[in-house]
């Protein structure tokens, strides 16, 4: 196609005008009119990455726009979360925030807190399980708790994440809830759940506290068993594992959440659009099938409830960090 000089000029001017109008008539009316970026603070190939890519695919169908996943790894999540809150609050850069938002600022690792974000929706929640080796000495949760109570301080060891990681805090919180001092069981820090699982199987440690799906392959292999899960109800993917409430009557629950957030100061109407699109994406077969198949917990909270949950969790985790002696 050959344009004359004149028509080229009008074309340029009109498209420029269209662009200006689109920018000025606030993003509202036709949001979203270009692709959205979803920042993931963890590496490609991990559980958070897979969750993000699946919800992104479901969200694309709802919004009719591409949702591009970008991994901003490093700094134990600080780098990615910082990138989310530094983005323009126009709804075109979102992030998949993880529970570290509630823990790291208490340890003095970063200044960012949940208040720096606009909550949009919570899409996942994983409860910690209490796992032991199949050939170990404990037959039941009762026996394990009895040993923790009666044996001298530090005779039992547990692992599952690094120092101050969510499973460390969740497990210590559970001990505190049972009236046991935070330092009764020694926490052996590890780089994630997999090394902790090998230590458990090799007899190096006594207990592993991680989400139940992280222990699944070793449970299938018959090397590890899960005594209980700290959840309100049994997990649908693991119906044979009782809850701590059934066994010891504890309704203590602290776990790992994942949710979609934006930078602070987003337009409420954009948030509302995203919230309803995310709800549909959350309900979609794409997302639900993936989560069921991985054994990940599904839990939905809308923008308001998500914000409240983060606030509540922040207080609880702050208290545990203090008790563990990691507050800074």
């Amino acid at each position, binding site marked *: 196609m050959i344009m004359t000089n004149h028509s080229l000029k009008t074309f340029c001017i009109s498209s420029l005008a269209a662009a200006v109008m689109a920018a000025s008539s606030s993003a509202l009316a036709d949001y979203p009119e270009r692709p959205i970026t979803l920042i993931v603070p963890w590496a490609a190939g991990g559980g958070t990455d897979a969750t993000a890519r699946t919800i992104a695919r479901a969200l694309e169908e709802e919004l009719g726009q591409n949702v591009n996943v970008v991994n901003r790894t490093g700094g134990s999540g600080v780098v990615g979360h910082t990138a989310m809150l530094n983005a323009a609050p126009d709804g075109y850069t979102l992030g998949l925030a993880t529970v570290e938002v509630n823990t790291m600022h208490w340890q003095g690792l970063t200044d960012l807190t949940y208040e720096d974000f606009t909550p949009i929706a919570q899409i996942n929640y994983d409860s910690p399980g209490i796992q032991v080796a199949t050939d170990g000495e404990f037959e039941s949760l009762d026996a394990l708790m009895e040993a923790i109570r009666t044996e001298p301080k530090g005779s039992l*060891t547990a692992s599952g994440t690094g120092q101050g990681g969510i499973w460390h805090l969740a497990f210590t919180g559970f001990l505190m809830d049972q009236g046991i001092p935070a330092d009764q069981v020694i926490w052996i820090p590890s780089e994630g759940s997999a090394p902790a699982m090998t230590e458990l199987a090799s007899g190096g440690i006594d207990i592993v506290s991680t989400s139940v799906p992280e222990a699944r392959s070793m449970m299938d292999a018959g090397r590890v068993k899960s005594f209980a899960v700290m959840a309100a109800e049994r997990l649908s993917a693991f119906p044979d594992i009782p809850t701590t409430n059934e066994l010891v009557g504890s309704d203590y629950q602290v776990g790992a959440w994942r949710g979609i957030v934006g930078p602070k100061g987003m337009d409420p109407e954009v948030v509302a659009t995203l919230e309803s699109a995310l709800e549909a994406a959350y309900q979609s077969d794409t997302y639900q099938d993936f989560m069921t198949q991985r054994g990940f917990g599904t839990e939905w909270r809308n923008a308001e409830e998500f914000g409240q949950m983060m606030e509540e969790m922040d207080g609880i985790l702050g208290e545990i960090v203090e008790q563990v002696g990691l507050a800074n």
Partner: protein
Amino acid sequence: MNGVGLVLNFETILVILAASLFGIFVGAVPGLTATMAVALLVPLTFYMDTIPAIAAIVTTSAMAIFAGDIPGTYLNIPGTPASAAYVGESYALAKKGRAREALGINLVCSVFGGIFGTIILIVVAQSLAEVALKFSAFEYFWLAVLGLSCSIFISVGSRTKAFLSLLFGILLSTVGLDMMSGAPRFTFGVPDLMAGINFIPVMIGMFALNELMSYYGSKSEKKTISVVDKDSVFHNVPGHIKRYWRNMVRGSSIGTLIGALPGAGADIAAWISYGVGKGRSKDSAKYGTGNVEGIVDASSANNSGISGAWVPALVFGIPGDSITAIVIGVLYMKGMNPGPTIFMDGSGLIYALFIVFILANLMMLPIGYMAIRLSKLFILTPSRVLMPIILCFCIVGAFAINNSVVDIWLMLIVGLVAYLLAVNDFPMAPAILGLVLGSVVENNFMSAMLRTGGDLTSFFARPISAGLGVAVILLWCSPLLIKAYRYQKQKTERASL
């Protein structure tokens, strides 16, 4: 038989071909690495079926690990920490006009190692994984110490300088959030440094940037490596294999075994295999001067290590290295959950996976040969054109691994430091191993001490741990013992005269 049908279809074969070319390209370009190649593939695998997705990753990683030796041979820039063990060896051969011969034997050893590892994976995966599960912090501590000691033991030139270089690497490994205390160390308030220093930008800086600077520093257009027409890829290979087949089998066994341990990968495997080879060789003095034997030891070990890493990944869902860590995510994604059941389910997926492994390794022969022929480009391209292009890829490669600008700075600073060290004859390779293994040594030591209440004898309390510990101590004492033996021998000779 289902497995064959799953592999031998148009889509899978096409994926394997495309992944081969992609892997060879990424591996052969200085600055781009195998881990980066696999990470780039992950988003694509979302849109593929299970077997093509796995095939893409297997093929790419095997090709990239081999191809990383091409710039190593021609430019002294290794593609992975695993090839850093013998880069000096193949570069020395290239200077003698035997670059293609070095790469030819390397290619054949890589294929052999890869297939050897795969056969082990097929036949004894479950029992090997059982052995791997016996390794706890105590054993990993000794294994990492053994790897570090080998880097000194096999270094050419001053051992003191190699040791100092190693300490520099270990110092870099202490940067970041300390896993044990949860406290940040040497991060200077930069959030990007909290995860520690990634070895990829460091390796690019140490080898590639350092090489660039010494090129511009020397100001001469004279080439150290010239095209030799007589230099044939495969001509001398049968002779070398006949002579060094023991090294091939030994290297592949060491590689598979160490690769199968969740806490140790192809890099430690290559170093230990090279060290063992040097220790047992009749002419160990030739190691480091352009010796085919050393290349056989290490290059069969690193490729079998890649296959070995799949053992714990498939049997227990526990990654054996950084590549299988990504693979496990993809397996789950595709509903092929790792665990013992993966070997039992009737769908034939696991057999398809094995066939993919064999196919990818066999494919390496023709495609690797093509790449070796094409790599003449490294010599034919004038250095003043080649060097700036390499610099571009260095920057891209350093950035791409974490999408972080801090890593580019890191690469530049390390490159400058490495240049100063290299000018003063410090070897680079021990520093890379120090960075990779420093935290393994530290974390396993701390973890062992934490659970035994600081009891040092616990490192000798478990049988495997005690065995490894004794091996390390013997290695440390070996120079003294050899000296004492020679002294004694001279004395008796003199006495008998």
